[in-house]
């Protein structure tokens, strides 16, 4: 029995009366198993021409799996996919493309060094023949862009574009190929509210022109704002389909999680904590400037303070200096002027070892390859920073026994699930890998923890674990800096939030006192 009194419309009964127009695409009884999980369990749903149909569900509910099956990336173990009433069997996404169905993944599939128009014609073009005329293609792309009111410079290189613009290129790519059905997988995750609005506008353009949009999301406000109908997935099953007219956020939320909605919010203190005279700041940045990868200044005169026991959020649209800030504190990126102090001691610029000694723990954005050596064992990764310590062996020697003991202890303490300490980190799931990383960083008894996008790509349970670890760490008196593009995460965990735009702090706000919209404006560059 499901808790709650609301009786969801059973599947199927809410189907509109048979009309001349069959659904653009439908899944009938689709089942997909992966080792250990049933990702889709007899899922049936349909998308009509001219509607925005939302797939709502938590992380891991099977939304992406379902869409990967629709587009032929994966084959269903059971069940059928129909387009316009006809069963279809796609062997690859390319077949789906040919049939007019395109999926836009969270990780955009664009060639960064190429121009917008080159990307648009990649793999398919209106014109036949070997010859390829950049000018001709630019004109064609500009035409499509205009038709759907999606302004973009066809000449620009992808790496020059913001994430929102890149997404637009992906959509253009599909429209250029005559897409009738667009599937967007959590497209708003890294967008500012303003960019998200633009995206919703584009979605509307598509359905107005008679196309269909499948919109994957777990964020209720935007679902309410943009959908025509909503199908809720939970634990691989399609729970219900509701028209937006009959839907209320609270009901959708309950359907989505299966019980009354739990709050992630911690007890936010009435007063922003911040450093006071009594507790001097643990981490202090004073007028810090630093260059980005391309040699241009990425941080302009940034000053911040983090007190013991405080979580300072760093919010902003990707590429506005947050990553650089995290790297500066972690010692990975040299700063050109200003000072970084931990407990009053200045850290030398660009010296990760000094940062480690100074008590900075750092969870980098790039988990595999930066934060962890994927080909090495869990043990090796756990001693990645402490292998220099005197306790780990005599003189130049490194004691395997001591390393092993430490590894077993930390694996238990941080609940790392793996066959053993010799398992290579590459084989771990994202959540377990992140647990290894956090275990190592926190085992050094840090004064300051910098976590950059620590929950990106993690499943729901691991995300909750990471959040809990961050809160516990702060509670134990560590100064925590949380860099995240996920506004919800920042708002629910942090005591204060510093908003970055163009390499500057445009404002420091208290989550209690600021609306998402206000924050969005600040992220887009408007002053606090």
């Amino acid at each position, binding site marked *: 029995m499901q808790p709650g009194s609301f009786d969801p419309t059973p599947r199927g009964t809410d189907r509109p009366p048979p009309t001349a127009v069959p659904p653009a695409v439908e899944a009938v009884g689709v089942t997909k198993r992966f080792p250990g999980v049933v990702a889709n369990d007899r899922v049936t749903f349909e998308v009509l021409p001219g509607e925005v149909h939302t797939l709502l569900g938590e992380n891991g509910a099977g939304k992406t799996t379902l869409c990967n099956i629709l587009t032929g*990336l*994966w*084959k269903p173990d059971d069940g059928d996919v129909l387009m316009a009433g006809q069963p279809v069997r796609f062997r*690859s*996404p*390319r077949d789906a*493309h040919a049939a007019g169905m395109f999926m836009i*993944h969270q990780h955009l*599939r*664009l*060639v*960064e*060094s*190429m121009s917008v128009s*080159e*990307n648009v*014609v*990649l*793999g*398919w*073009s209106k014109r036949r*023949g*070997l*010859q*390829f*005329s950049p000018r001709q293609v630019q004109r064609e792309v500009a035409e499509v862009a205009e038709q759907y009111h999606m302004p973009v410079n066809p000449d620009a290189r992808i790496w020059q574009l913001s994430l929102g613009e890149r997404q637009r290129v992906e959509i253009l*790519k599909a429209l250029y190929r005559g897409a009738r059905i667009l599937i967007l997988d959590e497209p708003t995750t890294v967008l500012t509210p303003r960019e998200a609005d633009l995206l919703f506008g584009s979605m509307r353009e598509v359905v107005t022109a008679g196309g269909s949009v499948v919109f994957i999301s777990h964020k209720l406000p935007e679902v309410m704002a943009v959908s025509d109908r909503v199908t809720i997935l939970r634990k691989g099953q399609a729970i219900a389909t509701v028209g937006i007219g009959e839907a209320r956020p609270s009901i959708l939320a309950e359907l989505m999680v299966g019980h009354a909605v739990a709050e992630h919010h911690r007890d936010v203190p009435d007063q922003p904590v911040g450093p006071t005279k009594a507790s001097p700041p643990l981490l202090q940045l004073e007028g810090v400037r630093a260059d980005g990868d*391309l*040699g241009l200044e990425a941080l302009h005169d940034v000053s911040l303070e983090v007190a013991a026991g405080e979580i300072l959020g760093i919010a902003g649209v990707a590429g506005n200096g947050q990553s650089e800030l995290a790297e500066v504190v972690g010692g990975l990126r040299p700063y050109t002027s200003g000072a970084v102090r931990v407990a009053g001691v200045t850290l030398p610029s660009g010296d990760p070892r000094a940062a480690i000694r100074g008590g900075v723990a750092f969870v980098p954005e790039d988990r595999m390859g930066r934060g962890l050596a994927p080909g090495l064992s869990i043990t090796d990764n756990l001693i990645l920073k402490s292998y220099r310590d005197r306790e780990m062996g005599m003189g130049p020697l490194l004691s395997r026994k001591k390393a092993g003991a430490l590894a077993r202890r930390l694996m238990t303490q941080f609940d790392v699930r793996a066959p053993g300490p010799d398992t290579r980190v590459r084989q771990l799931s994202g959540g377990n890998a992140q647990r290894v990383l956090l275990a190592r960083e926190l085992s050094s008894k840090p004064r300051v923890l910098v976590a950059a996008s620590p929950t990106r790509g993690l499943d729901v349970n691991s995300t909750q674990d990471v959040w809990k670890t961050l809160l516990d760490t702060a509670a134990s008196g560590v100064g925590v800096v949380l860099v995240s593009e996920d506004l919800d995460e920042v708002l629910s965990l942090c005591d204060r939030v510093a908003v970055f735009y163009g390499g500057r702090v445009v404002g420091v706000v208290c989550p209690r006192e600021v609306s998402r919209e206000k924050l969005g404006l600040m992220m887009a560059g408007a002053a606090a």
Partner: protein
Amino acid sequence: MNRNIVIALIVTAIGNGTPLVLAGLGELLAERSGVLNLGVEGMMLMGAVSGFTVSQKLGGPAALVLLAALLGAAAAGAVMALIHAFLSITVRVNQIVSGLALTIFAGTAGLSSYVGQVWKVGGIHGLHQYKAVDLFGLKNLPIVGPIVFHEDPLVYFSVILVAVAMWYLFRTRTGLYLRSVGESPAAADAMGINVTRYRYAHTVLGGALAGLGGAYFTLALAPFWTDGLTAGDGWIAIALVIFAFWRPDLLLLGAYLFGAFVALGPTLQARGIHALPSEFFSAVPYVMTVVVLVAASTGWAKRRLGTPAALGVPYSREGG
């Protein structure tokens, strides 16, 4: 007198540079698809010995024999490249080690030497050779005559090939797809471009061109075969690709420049100038390669220019 030295130097430079153009172009295409093939030296040697063997053993009109020899050389290089393609694209082993293995397998003390022994073509003078042609009857023009209008057909062929490669890479659909495969195989794959096929095709094509580059030694430069006669040109060709920022036009320039470094010592010595020991001049191309590589790598923003982002990284979609 001085002008004659310069002209002689340029003529020799073009001769020495042509195998670099051919082999370098092949490597460039392979790398554009994301496959690093360090086996160029081995492929060139196989091309050299195979082409020479065919030209020695086949009877018939010289033009046809030479053509068959070229085809044989290209085929030999292509087969060698196929081994590397299989290991690095299908089995997805480390491309560096696989390329080194190819060089050892086919190289100076390997299969190329074996072939030369089995067919007994070592140390004999060849029957056929590509000789300079008098293009449009203009070879007697001052300066440009001997440089531009008096080269062998393979030189003209290699220059045309560079032009074709420029057009192919930047003005055709296939070229665009090729570049995308080298930059972002995942993006190309998502758009229905067959990454594996592109990589195989261009690695094998690269091998064929390397084979032709090797054959230039035995069919045009000097018609004889000896073990290891390419003397590191395969490696210089790889360096040239970096130096040229993966562009065929710059590669052509670089190859002739290196041809000039190679030609410097012999040209001076032929005129009785012995200012420095011959070993010094012999070492110049190798030292210059190091210098050029350092120059091309200082400042990493510049280095990124042209480097295919997925170079040397095996691609697999996994699942599906």
